[in-house]
């Protein structure tokens, strides 16, 4: 595959997301969302902002007391959630705003705030019907927080180290977690049952589930600080493809000069993108052989 290279950022890409139709690719600090009308971004500048997709105009600004680590729209598109970091004396909080009530936005008053005293939330996604948020923590724990009451509905600890990224399948029934413990795991969204594990030798920064094939893609590498100890050969940082049922790796795509921070499949499953520490976003369209490829079984 010959990739398309995009360089629009000067610094590292931390997240890339496709919109639902697949004609837009957002590469940014945080999480835009399936609703193509608006984009929600959260940043280390202690704010969460809502933008109009078409005009690029900022629609709303929510100031926070510490950096915003993750954010997202629920399935209906009416409720937003974001988590703030444990910083400068402030705890980690998971905040919920209802966009249908403009008062909440104006007053910067979430209708629900869940404090997270022990291990901060490092990544979070909404459940399939917006009743709960699935959050991954610094210590590898995964919790289901109710979006109505704020209580913990379910929790599991399958990872031994920080969860760097959580992404859902296209139908939201399952999600994949990417962890610093060198593995990615597949879970059922409703029951939090651990279904599959994909092992590597490097920390996994991001993972995504293909919308059309039984494949997952994972990107990672190392801590930015340790990069000089790996091979200095060009483009050694790879995106790795695993078969979702067999847990076996079947392919790698080289090209990045630094650790890969984020991967995402196009909604039609015919291409994927990866963003890295080197400041590049690479879009890859799969060759026909990719779709025909089968592991012997």
């Amino acid at each position, binding site marked *: 595959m010959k990739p398309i290279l995009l360089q629009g950022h000067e610094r590292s890409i931390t997240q890339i997301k496709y919109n*639902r*139709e*697949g004609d837009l690719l957002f590469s940014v600090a945080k999480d835009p969302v399936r609703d193509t009308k608006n984009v929600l971004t959260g940043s280390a500048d202690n704010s969460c902002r809502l933008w109009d997709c078409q005009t690029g105009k900022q629609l709303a600004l929510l100031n926070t007391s510490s950096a915003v680590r993750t954010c997202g729209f*629920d*399935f*209906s*598109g009416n409720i937003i959630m974001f988590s703030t970091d444990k910083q400068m004396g402030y705890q980690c909080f998971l905040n919920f705003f209802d966009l249908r009530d403009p008062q909440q936005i104006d007053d910067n008053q979430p209708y629900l705030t869940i404090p997270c005293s022990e291990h901060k939330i490092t990544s979070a996604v909404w459940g*399939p*019907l*917006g009743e709960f948020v699935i959050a991954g923590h610094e210590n590898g724990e995964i919790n289901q927080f109710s979006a109505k009451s704020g209580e913990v509905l379910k929790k599991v600890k399958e990872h031994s180290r920080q969860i760097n990224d959580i992404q859902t399948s296209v*139908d939201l*029934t*399952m999600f994949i977690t990417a962890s610093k413990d060198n593995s990615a795991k597949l879970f*059922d969204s*409703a029951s939090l049952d651990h*279904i*599959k594990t994909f092992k590597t*030798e*490097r920390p996994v920064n991001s993972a995504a589930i293909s919308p059309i094939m*039984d494949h997952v893609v994972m990107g990672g590498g*190392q801590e930015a600080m*340790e990069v000089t*100890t*790996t*091979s200095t050969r060009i483009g050694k940082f790879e995106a790795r493809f695993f078969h*979702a*049922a*067999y*847990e076996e790796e079947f392919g790698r795509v080289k090209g990045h000069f630094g650790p890969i921070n984020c991967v995402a499949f196009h*909604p*039609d499953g015919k291409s994927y993108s990866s963003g890295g520490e080197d400041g590049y976003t690479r879009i890859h369209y799969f060759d026909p052989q990719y779709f025909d490829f089968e*592991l*012997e*079984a």
Partner: protein
Amino acid sequence: MQDTVDIMDDAEYEEEEPSFSDPEDFEDDIEDEEFLDDILREKPLEADGIDSVVVVDNVPQVGPERLEKLKNVIHKIFSKFGKITTEFYPDADGLTKGYIFLEYAAPTQALEAVKNADGYKLDKQHTFRVNLFTDFDKYMNISDEWETPEKQPFKDFGNMRHWIEDPDCRDQYSVIYEAGERTAIFSNDAKEPITAEERARWTETYVRWSPKGTYLATFHQRGIALWGGEKFKQIQRFSHQGVSLIDFSPCERYVVTFSPLMDTKEDPQAIIIWDILTGQKKRGFHCESSAHWPIFKWSHDGKFFARMTIDTLSIYETPSMGLLDKKSLKINGIKDFSWSPGDNIIAFWVPEDKDIPARVTLMQLPSRQEIRVRNLFNVVDCKLHWQRNGDYLCVKVDRTPKGTQGVVTNFEIFRMREKQVPVDVVEMKESIIAFAWEPNGSKFAVLHGETPRISVSFYHVKNNGKIDLQKMFDKQQANSIFWSPQGQFLVLAGLRSMNGALAFVDTSDCTMMNIAEHYMASDVEWDPTGRYVVTSVSWWSHKVDNAYWLWTFQGRLLQKNNKDRFCQLLWRPRPPTLLSVDQIKLIKKDLKKYSKIFEQKDRLSQSKASKELVDKRRAMMEEYRSYREKAQQTYQEQKSLRLELRGGVDTDELDSNVDDWEEETIEFFINEEIIPLGDL
């Protein structure tokens, strides 16, 4: 003032004075101890002070006129060891009996006296024998009854050579990983390693195999343990606090342990030699520094072991553990020595001394006959390299020729199997990086030059007295040479700083079979049969990508085994073959017959493996599919909820909402066809 009045006279005191005497028949029934306990406690016992008494025999028998003189002499000699508090010179018939008793202030002083004065020659007829008084007691009190020592139950460790009997001839290797937390033993199979044993915290630092592969030694704070047999049971344990290094005798009869901690002047404990079968401590030695371990070098048959100290070569024999001929060899300036791996011959070298040139000497043991001496001039340094069978000795000599500044290297090749041990010289123009003999042949490989221009040269020591340069390859990325234990093949590796470049060479015609790389490889280990090579990245030298890779001897990569914080892999050595040379010749002749059978076996196991894999995958897919079906079902059931959330707009599929669609008609050119309509 009133005068005192005698009370007795006072009429008022008419009562009888109470009597304080005991009644007439009163028997005292209180023991002495109760009254005088504290004083009685200090009553000297007969046994007190016995530990500080020595008995000196063979003392001259003198009359009273010479007694004073005798006492002075004794005093002079024996007060060196401590303060003499009492002396007793028993006599009979006017002469001293010939033995005396001396008491010291402390038992340690008595011990010193025994140690140092026993055997002291006073004069021709009188050699003192000094013993502790308590020793006499001990020996006199040996019971007259003979008690048969209790029979120790036989500890059956099973078949100690069990791993050799593997029907598929798989070799074993030990792997330490998880930064030392786990140690595992695997059987090597080309497809994937088969676990034989795996234990947590089996060793605290690292492991070592014995030279014939019988034992696995593990290290612990309190000493080492040896494990073996089919189940790796603990065979023996040796207590040596803080042990850090060990070495086995080639015959596996003895093990030498070193600890930097325990050493006292009286009781040398830095190096201890143990008998493996009985578990006994045979002898202890002092050791100043462990810089060049092993300090004791063993002869190939385990009959002798030797060590070098300043100007001295000490050779000991087994099993007595005493110095050969009861004395060390004085060799002024001795710099280095080593045993021939094939015979009881020691090679050592001495640097220049004023106008005596430097020398390499070959000495036969136990006769100590010098069978060859070679003078060398302007020597800076020498290194001894024996070929594994002892057929050749290579002395790498660095010299500064007269009148020049630079250092030049020669290889002095000693042909051990020829009469008079002739020596041939190979001159090298560049500095040497590595040198290695073919283990059971007559070739050697040399890496020379300086980064980045490093070359490898292959030499053949011929029978006709010549040493041929067979081939030279330049522009090599290598700093180490690893020959196959069976000879002919070798691996050139650029370890650590050279990033793991590998070259597989067949020296029969000096061809490069394969060039490959294992990035950041820190070690290369051949299996004992010479079929496989393992390259590995140890966590001890590089903190990521810790793994060991398995290659064939031709350089074909078979496996990549990642292990969390992998540290060390060691192949289990094989005992020497029991086959005679003729038997081996016979097998080689019939090799075609055997290889047919082996190939068939391989094909069977291959297909079995793929079948297993295919079955496994099928099962996983089944499981996954059924999970997905259930999830899909739930998804469908929730469709109405989703419609509700998105205000009645169906977004399940990209094309499910017709309103989103824009229809556009595009025309584009496909084909042009010209049809002649005939002439009009």
